[in-house]
């Protein structure tokens, strides 16, 4: 008889819940919550409880594949690795290093992200590295870096319980960050005010004290409106503004025109409700802002984030417990992927590639010449591939064929590449287009670290042996590097990689595997006796003074018109995770939700002759999808919501790739569609 449990971190969302993987006879048989875990406190959501189900699936990629004719056929590691090494070298020689791009994975460990970006920079010589954070929190990184000097969540998840007021906007928290919603309801039980501001009546709205429902794409307006009221009433924190910020006057002047009446015209929010929200937020001792994609996934995403930063600084709600600006990161390790420099313009710890001191430090450490010009983003890489400027793309653990906007364009782009290498655990729409596919190990088969949304670095630990011939991602890059004659990739264990990371990254310098075995550590953690940092910007912002930015509201790029009279907004569902590669292979989750449904308001449905569960055809200027209708009044009349998790009704066939000019994030949250009842073929 045997039975053991291995403590790890859930592979799904950015909450970073502790889980025990239960193992009998070398196989995963279940998961259990970790009783005293700082985030999950003995609970798990349905995905966490099912986190073992996909790992040993029959569908797992077990052998390397390469394209022969029209099909992908199995081959051995050496053949596959050598073929990739040869092709990469040839393309680099012929077209230059910047004709090659890398997409890193927000699901892979810190060690793996680091090795990928080291490979891209030191071996290939390009800064064309990016990952899916581009599509989710790039405005957060850009906006908060500009306002505060650091793009990370300012406070910690457990601290939410200490807040007196929590304002949640653009985050369907109970469905997408359940353990964080858990803190929000706990705070409410303690008497905190909960304000939800969202274009949809989300589940959390029913457990809030105040719910405001603005029109899509009007966030700068209502945020400016709140500030307008706060300033007129004198509720702002004058001391904080004077001592800790700059540029207030310009911002104040801009907000003056956002009267409650004007805000109502733009957003539909009634003045008395806006006042209520402003009063609750401004008058509470500790007020916390929580947000996700509803704020970021717009062409004005960076502006939206800057506006929230303005609001927090206006009321002195940064740099103390239970307050701050709290962007909830999506993936289990998207924070880590950013921290590890899997981005075109920074190395680890946000040290810029165009900072001579930083780049020299890394060049010395790695013994290689490194490129100093920032590279291009994932959205630009797709365009460049379509234009024929990008010749090769190496993708680790990402599925742009489902998660990027305007899928037809993505397909055209990827099909145009001379070399597409994909490293993943399952076949998906992206691997199907690849020239070479490497089978990778899942979170349960390897050791490493991941960083959750509140800067918490945690361990994943190996519970079972790798399936088939799958290798861990850092191992694959190491082998490739050796074949290509590079030094500095002879890692035997992930600990060695982590030691290298922390030697180059001040914010991680004090974190060690040994400490992680018994301590709870959030970066910045500069030395080995530093306890880690719960909340940021205490006393002084990372950039010194916090910077207000005057922001004017701009409408979304594509709004409803005569031809396309509905708003389309996209998002997620609770039971599946992103492109469903893992969750749609989990029986527990599939049982709850086997396929997609689009949310439509009952009034609209009646007008169109659509009943619950009828098939609808939804089309935009980019494409069309057929999808089942779900009648609900959580969406206002005139708006359709489609979750993007389902390949057969891919929401991103419809979305627009128009981007935020600074962060380059696509406007996933707003575009125009028309809706019809689908005609049956029979």
């Amino acid at each position, binding site marked *: 008889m045997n039975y053991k449990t291995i403590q790890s971190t859930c592979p799904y969302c950015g909450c970073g819940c502790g889980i025990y993987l239960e193992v009998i006879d070398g196989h995963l*048989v279940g998961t259990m919550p970790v009783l005293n875990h700082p985030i999950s406190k003995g609970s798990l959501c*349905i995905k*966490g409880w099912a986190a073992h189900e996909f790992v040993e699936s029959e569908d797992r990629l077990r052998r390397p594949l390469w394209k022969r004719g029209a099909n992908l056929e199995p081959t051995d590691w050496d053949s596959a690795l050598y073929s990739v090494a040869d092709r990469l070298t040839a393309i680099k020689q012929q077209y230059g290093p910047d004709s090659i791009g890398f997409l890193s994975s927000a699901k892979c460990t810190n060690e793996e992200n680091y090795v990928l970006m080291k490979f891209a920079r030191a071996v290939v010589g390009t800064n064309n590295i990016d990952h899916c954070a581009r599509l989710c929190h790039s405005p957060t990184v850009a906006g908060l870096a500009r306002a505060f000097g650091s793009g990370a969540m300012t406070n910690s998840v457990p601290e939410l319980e200490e807040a007196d007021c929590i304002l949640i906007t653009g985050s369907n928290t109970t469905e997408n960050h359940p353990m964080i*919603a858990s803190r929000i309801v706990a705070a409410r039980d303690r008497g905190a005010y909960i304000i939800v501001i969202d274009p949809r009546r989300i*589940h959390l709205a029913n457990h809030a004290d105040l719910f405001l429902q603005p029109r899509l794409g009007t966030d700068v307006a209502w945020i400016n409106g709140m500030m307008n009221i706060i300033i007129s009433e004198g509720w702002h924190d004058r001391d904080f503004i004077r001592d800790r910020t700059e540029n207030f006057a310009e911002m104040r002047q801009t907000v003056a025109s956002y009267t409650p009446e004007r805000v109502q015209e733009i957003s539909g929010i009634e003045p008395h409700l806006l006042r209520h929200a402003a009063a609750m937020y401004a008058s509470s001792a500790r007020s916390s802002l929580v947000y996700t994609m509803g704020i970021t996934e717009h062409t004005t995403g960076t502006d939206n984030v800057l506006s929230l930063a303005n609001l927090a600084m206006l009321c002195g709600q940064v740099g103390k417990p239970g307050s701050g600006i709290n962007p909830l990161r999506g993936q289990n390790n998207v924070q880590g992927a950013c921290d590890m420099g899997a981005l075109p313009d920074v190395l680890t710890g946000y040290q810029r590639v165009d900072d001579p001191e930083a780049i020299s430090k890394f060049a010395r450490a790695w013994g290689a010449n490194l490129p100093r010009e920032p590279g291009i983003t994932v959205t630009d890489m797709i365009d460049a591939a379509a234009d024929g400027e990008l010749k090769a793309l190496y993708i680790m653990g990402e599925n742009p064929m489902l998660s990027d906007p305007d899928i037809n364009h993505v397909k055209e782009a990827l099909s145009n590449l001379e070399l597409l290498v994909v490293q993943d655990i399952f076949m998906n729409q992206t691997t199907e287009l690849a020239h070479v596919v490497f089978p990778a190990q899942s979170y349960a088969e390897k050791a490493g670290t991941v960083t959750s949304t509140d800067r918490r670095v945690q361990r994943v630990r190996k519970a079972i042996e790798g399936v088939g011939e799958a290798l861990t991602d850092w191992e694959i890059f190491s082998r490739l590097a050796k074949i290509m004659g590079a030094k500095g990739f002879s890692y035997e264990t992930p600990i060695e990689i982590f030691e290298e990371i922390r030697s180059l990254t001040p914010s991680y310098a004090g974190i060690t595997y040994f400490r992680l075995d018994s301590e709870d550590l959030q970066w910045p953690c500069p030395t080995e006796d530093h306890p880690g940092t719960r909340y940021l910007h205490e006393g002084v912002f990372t950039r010194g003074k916090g910077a207000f930015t005057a922001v004017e509201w701009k409408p979304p790029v594509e709004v409803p018109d005569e031809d396309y009279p509905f708003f389309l907004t996209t998002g997620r569902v609770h039971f599946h995770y992103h492109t469903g590669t893992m969750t749609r292979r989990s029986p527990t989750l599939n049982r709850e939700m086997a396929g997609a449904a689009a949310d439509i308001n009952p009034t609209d449905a009646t007008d169109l002759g659509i009943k619950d569960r009828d098939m609808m055809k939804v089309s935009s200027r980019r494409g069309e999808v057929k999808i089942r209708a779900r009648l609900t009044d959580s969406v206002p009349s005139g708006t359709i919501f489609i979750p993007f998790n389902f390949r057969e009704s891919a929401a991103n066939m419809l979305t627009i790739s128009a981007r935020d000019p600074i962060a380059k994030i696509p406007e996933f949250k707003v575009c125009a569609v028309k809706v019809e009842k689908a005609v049956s073929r029979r």
Partner: protein
Amino acid sequence: MQEEVEDTREQQARRIARELIASGGMDGILGLLEIRDHQVPHLFTEVDELEGLDVSGRYPIAAIAERLLRKFETGRIGVIARGCDERHLIELEKKKSVDMSRLKLIGLACTIEEARECHCVRPYPREVQIGRSVGNVDYLDHEALSKLINMDIAERRRFWTDIFDRCIKCYGCRNVCPLCNCEDCRLEEARWVRVGEIPPEYPSFHLIRAFHMADKCVGCFACERACPMGIPVGKLHQLIKEDLKSVYGYQAGRDVEEKSPLLLAPGVETKGKGGRG
């Protein structure tokens, strides 16, 4: 004068486990392993592992015992069992889910603090080998339960409707419960509870479970601890247990021969009527 220093519960547990492993009659001892300040269920098979054996945590260990006995057709294991763990196993035995002859219970008595945390009336197993029983305990945390008891029916309706509305259908309450071991769980059947909804269908999800647990719940409160949304499910089960106790004199987990009132006892008054109104 010689002062006798009593072994701590950990020391007692390790000593007993060591003896059992050394004697060779057991395939392992099921208990809690302390690792990195957390306590996790573990099957101790080697004496050197026993240094990490801890007894201060609480985990529904009966569920794991049941699963091991099901997965492995032969073999015996020792189980370090609190009062609630023993009650779980007795109920599982009633269902014929465990064969108690394959288990050796090593009884662990709870401290008064531990009893209070669980509102536990009987924080000790039948035979205590580890620790010392504190005897029967009055509900020392009356407050939360009294509040519920003293609500009138309309207040109760509002309370439970509001709080069940927070549910995110994690199934945590069911997953941690050792008595919830059905191969085909009714809560997962779409005809009883619509699938894919947050919050799950009311009152189906919670009241179907409450009904199923009525004669099985032994009051360990693992369900309430597992709920991420602060729903006091354990207290609802507790009130239902009190009801069955006062009407039928039934207590789950007391004796394997004690039949559930849902398994008919003829001759008792059966005129259908409501409970408190």
